[in-house]
């Protein structure tokens, strides 16, 4: 039971930051803008939450600091994503190029600023992180309680809640319909009076908000400080999760949980008696191999929004 609970809770909280970032990618890519810059946006989110929290804590902000930090991360993510938006929407730059540039810029800029602020490439540790807790009452329910309501992070609920909210918005609100139409067939959307450029800006900026949150949750949950190596590859994993989840919010939930589970098994596996003799390298690569097998076995073809990656030029044929 202990081990099962461990695997379940590890799965869930490992999935949370990826889920947020992948949802960000979903907004951008559903509007037709490839976002390979999720990594950079996560870096900015991680940077923002740590700097904000440190500053507020110094001013006596207490436990609230990190939550304000989360908000700041969302805002900074949105602003930072404007680079990508302006280049790829307005200047019709290749969207992959501009996303790559975003990644370079994020690491360079954040570390440069950290250096400037603290005279060091690494910040101090925040005191108020996101901590696990047991939900009173619910955690006492047999079986379910220990699995889902004990040792939980508030941020996990935030991620899941937002994922369902995104699902609702994308599929049930006019905004979602319009956003998707812009990613599928911008010319058609244009003739229907939808402002393609505006929708894409919103899509990209929302990707900044969500990826910023993802990076922030990661930093404030796991590392507690910020340096150039706080975010290393999570953005790319989020991108993979987005494609794995077929650009669908519920798919994203599934994909990130799958990644989380694979990772949890890789880590916990060595402690399991029947796996302890397996050479560690196999457990290390297991999450990645499992993902490939899953893709080849039952997930198969993934097709993105039709207009993904194509700049919209009015009146082009």
């Amino acid at each position, binding site marked *: 039971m202990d081990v099962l609970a461990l695997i379940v809770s590890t799965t869930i909280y*490992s999935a949370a930051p990826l889920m947020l970032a992948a949802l960000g990618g979903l907004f951008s890519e559903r509007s037709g803008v490839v976002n390979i810059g999720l990594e950079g946006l996560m870096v900015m989110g991680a940077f923002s939450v740590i700097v904000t929290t440190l500053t507020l804590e110094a001013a006596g902000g207490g436990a609230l600091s990190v939550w304000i930090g989360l908000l700041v991360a969302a805002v900074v993510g949105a602003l930072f994503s404007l680079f990508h938006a302006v280049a790829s929407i307005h200047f019709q730059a290749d969207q992959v190029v501009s996303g790559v540039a975003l990644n370079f810029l994020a690491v360079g800029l954040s570390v440069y600023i950290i250096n400037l602020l603290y005279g060091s490439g690494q910040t101090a*540790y925040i005191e108020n992180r996101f901590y696990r807790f047991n939900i009173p009452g619910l955690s006492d329910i047999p079986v379910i309680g220990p699995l889902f309501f004990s040792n939980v992070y508030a941020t996990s609920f935030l991620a899941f809640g937002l994922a369902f909210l995104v699902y609702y918005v994308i599929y049930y609100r006019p905004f979602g319909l319009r956003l998707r139409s812009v990613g599928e067939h911008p010319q058609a959307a244009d003739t229907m009076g939808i402002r393609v450029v505006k929708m894409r800006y919103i899509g990209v900026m929302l990707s900044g908000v969500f990826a910023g949150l993802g990076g922030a949750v990661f930093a404030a949950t*796991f590392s507690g400080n910020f340096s150039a*190596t706080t975010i290393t590859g999570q953005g790319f994993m989020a991108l993979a999760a987005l494609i794995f989840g077929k650009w669908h919010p519920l798919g994203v939930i599934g994909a990130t949980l799958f990644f989380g589970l694979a990772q949890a098994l890789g*880590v*916990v596996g060595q*402690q399991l008696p029947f796996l302890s003799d397996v050479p560690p390298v196999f457990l290390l690569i297991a999450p990645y191999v499992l993902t490939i097998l899953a893709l080849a076995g039952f997930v198969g073809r993934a097709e993105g929004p039709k207009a993904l990656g194509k700049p919209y030029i009015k009146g082009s044929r």
Partner: protein
Amino acid sequence: ACGQGDGSENNAGSEGGGESSDFTAKMVTDVSGIDDKSFNQFSWEGLKAFGEANGLEEGKNYDYVQSSTAQDFEPNLRALTRENTDISWAIGFLMADAVKTVAQQNEDAQLAIIDSVVTDDNGDPLSNVANITFKEHEGSFLVGVAAGLQTETNKVGFIGGVESELIKKFENGFKAGVHAVNPDAEVIVQYAEVFTDPQKGQQLANTMYTTGADVIYHSAGNTGNGLFTEAINRVKNGEQVWAIGVDKDQYEEGVYEGDQSVTLTSMIKRVDTAVQDVTQQTMDGSFPGGEILEYGIEDDGIDYATTGDNLSPEIIESMDDYMQQILDGELEVPKTDDEFNEFAG
């Protein structure tokens, strides 16, 4: 080798010894950067302490150069030797090959390296390189003693970064320390295979604590941050668990609520002392070229931290006792798996 070493010393003496303000000592950082809160930073602190002690000018007499990738080591070192720097420091064993190349190409250069021994193709140390290593296993042994005494579950953990000969010293020293005071205790060992993933560190710690460990020591760089995160989480939920820091006093990493910390103690490796020491020797005209300087407890190179008084006086007493045994040469701490197996019998 000694003869050659003397030659270069004279050379250095004529340049640096005569007028102290001409003496130059510079270091090349590893890719983790000058402010990694770890050995790059300590090395720099050692160099600064040296400079301040001698009234030298930062930037001119002593300075550092950052490396962004492993490819930068060699050009950075070469750049320093080309400026006729009196002692060029290479921080970290990863730079061993770069040091070798540069040292062989420029026999007048004087280099020093941390955590490695640079040899020529015959396995003999190069005469113009000073090799500084540490007896991390001894320090790890001491914190192992603390862990073995502190544990109530008779289960402790060790999280390694990327498995290597160096990190093995930490692991085996720690295991030996636990074994020495608590032969019944089990030590769970797991390597993250990455130095930069705090999430993985947290997951490893979570697993170890869940399966019963209550004290965990790490030697995993940034990955180790996750250990403190996890320990804090557990302590906040009313559990009694401990983390042990590495390389420096990691008390701060474990702080929760005011000034309480989950950091039981830390294994301290005084890179700064070593750097300051050797640089001073060089300035004084006795560059230890070709020598292997192994800093241990007796040279103030290895220590443990007591910040926050989390260690009980009894444990400290026991640690000091073992420290004395090591100093007296009564106790040989194992470094490798084989040595540990022999030690544990």
